[in-house]
């Protein structure tokens, strides 16, 4: 994406804030269920459930009362039920492994819902939803909401292998069409989600993506190239999840056309796909607001 694009040439507007503030609660796990390589936890968290909108996430304290790991782990909300919130956890490091070991009856400390939800398109717009790995879970609620707003929903869910696919059934139950891809061909089509995205983007009026950064970038680029607005939910390393620490930033073009280091927890995690400067994540381009004060000069 060019950094000099004119202010008016963006296909998206920044996602608006959520309608309600988050709460902090000690909640009970009502069920824990392995799904492929992941664990799906359902929490009795009525206040979070009532406030949650698709695209938002929650942040868990991890490790129990004697923990040495102080930072919360952010996990996307995969769905809400009667007073419950569901999340899908991929055991990876110590924090997510601890979370994935929770069992019904255990309590966890959760803050949420956090972040900005996916903005909805005009009613009736066909929407393409693309999930990578456990990222697909975060799209289930969105798919339902879009359908109830009269959208046609096309879903693509991909992963490295069959065990890492997520929410195929749940998406199947609500979307008009579901494409499955795996890198190793162990389920669905062999290949990346992009094969399916390239086919479907033409019929879509908006695209949504959740998953690893390279996938988000590919989806955003495909959508932008096709003239379709896209919204991506990014996953940046977060220390607080609530907007106070400034660790989770990435370069995003604002509505004034200027690039800022924006907090993915409170100004995201949902950003316009054409507003995230993917190629510059992890670096400091000269044209980010305030880069000059860091000694970075225009090349």
């Amino acid at each position, binding site marked *: 994406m060019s950094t000099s694009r004119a202010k008016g040439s963006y296909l998206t507007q920044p996602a608006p804030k959520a309608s309600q*503030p*988050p*709460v*902090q609660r000690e909640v009970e796990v009502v069920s824990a269920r392995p799904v492929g390589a992941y664990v799906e936890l359902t929490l009795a968290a009525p206040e979070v459930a009532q406030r949650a909108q698709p695209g938002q996430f929650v942040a868990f*304290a991890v490790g129990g009362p004697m923990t*040495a*790991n*102080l*930072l*919360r782990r952010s996990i996307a909300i995969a769905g809400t039920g009667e007073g419950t919130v569901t999340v899908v956890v991929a055991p990876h490091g110590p924090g997510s492994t601890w979370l994935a070991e929770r069992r019904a009856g255990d309590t966890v*400390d959760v*803050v949420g819902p956090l972040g900005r939800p996916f903005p909805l398109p005009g009613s009736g717009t066909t929407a393409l939803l693309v999930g990578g790995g456990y990222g697909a879970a975060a799209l289930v609620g969105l798919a339902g909401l879009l359908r109830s707003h009269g959208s046609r929903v096309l879903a693509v869910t991909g992963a490295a292998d069959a065990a890492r696919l997520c929410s195929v059934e749940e998406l199947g139950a609500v979307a008009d069409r579901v494409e499955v891809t795996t890198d190793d061909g162990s389920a669905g089509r062999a290949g990346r989600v992009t094969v399916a995205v390239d086919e479907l983007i033409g019929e879509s009026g908006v695209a949504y993506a959740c998953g690893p950064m390279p996938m988000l970038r590919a989806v955003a680029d495909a959508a932008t190239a096709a003239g379709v607005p896209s919204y991506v939910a990014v996953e*940046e*390393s977060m*220390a*607080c*999840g*609530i*907007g*106070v*620490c*400034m*660790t*989770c*930033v*990435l370069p995003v073009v604002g509505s004034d056309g200027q690039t*800022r*280091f924006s907090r993915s927890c*409170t100004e995201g995690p949902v950003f316009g796909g054409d507003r995230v400067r993917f190629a510059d*994540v*992890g*670096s*400091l381009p000269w044209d*980010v*607001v*305030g*880069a*000059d*004060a*860091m000694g*970075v000069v225009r090349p």
Partner: protein
Amino acid sequence: MTVLDTAVDMTTALGSVPLVGPVLTASGCSAFGQELEPFVDLTALGAVVTKSVQLRPRSGRPTPRMAETPSGMLNSIGLQGPGIDGLLAGELPWLAERGVPAFVSIAGTRVEDFAELATRLRGVPGVLGLEVNISCPNVESRGEVFACDPLAASDVIAAVRAAADPAQPVYAKLSPDVTDIVSVARAVTEAGADGLSMINTLLGLVIDPDTMKPVLGGVTGGLSGPAVRPVAVRCVWQVHQALPEVPILGMGGIRSGLDALQFVLAGASAVSVGTAVFHDPSATARVHRELAAALAERGFSSLREAVGYAHR
């Protein structure tokens, strides 16, 4: 949270300015307070210590900006912020409207920057006082950090004290990364500091086992959280021992009321809660409550009685 949830008188002061309670946020750990509104009553805090501001808006450093460490974290944000104009136009009025006292942290890379910031903040409504973040590289001295040199540190403080509103107390924020913190404390006090904030982060480094390079782009970062608490309490103890009349705002790893109590007993008359807020967004209010209860249990009728008690 109610401020007076126990019989203990929790009022205190920053220099000459009275505070409703002894628990403050820590600079850089609660932004400008707004994001904490869903979790705590900001007006019940001693004050919001704002993220260190410089003259110009700053982007801060590229990511990754942090690494989790045992009972702590390493950060290298690079003082991302709106600059003094942005602060005066946006955040400070927001706090003032709500009656939330602000203790404004200022930072710079030359003495004049600090002085100019202090000038700009004269008489600004809601600004209780200034915390001077001298843990910044001094561009005029091969990038050595002001706080690591008693002379450079006192130059900054003298300039700020001269420029600042006389009604606004000036606190010097000290770094623990020095051979002799008492000599720095003494130097800045003699230069006019009305109080001392202790401690800033410790210089640390984490190497990523996957990339086999430092996690942070800036190589080193600042270590904070409960891991550093014994170092922070030691600094407060040493300085209060040497300069018992100088007020101290204590910080470094405070997570609970009993942690805060350690700082108070060591000599702090107020405390800042930093990293713990990332773990528990309502930590400041909880620490206040727990500290009040702990003081009551120990038979104190006021916070002031407990300040420095461990030295007696």
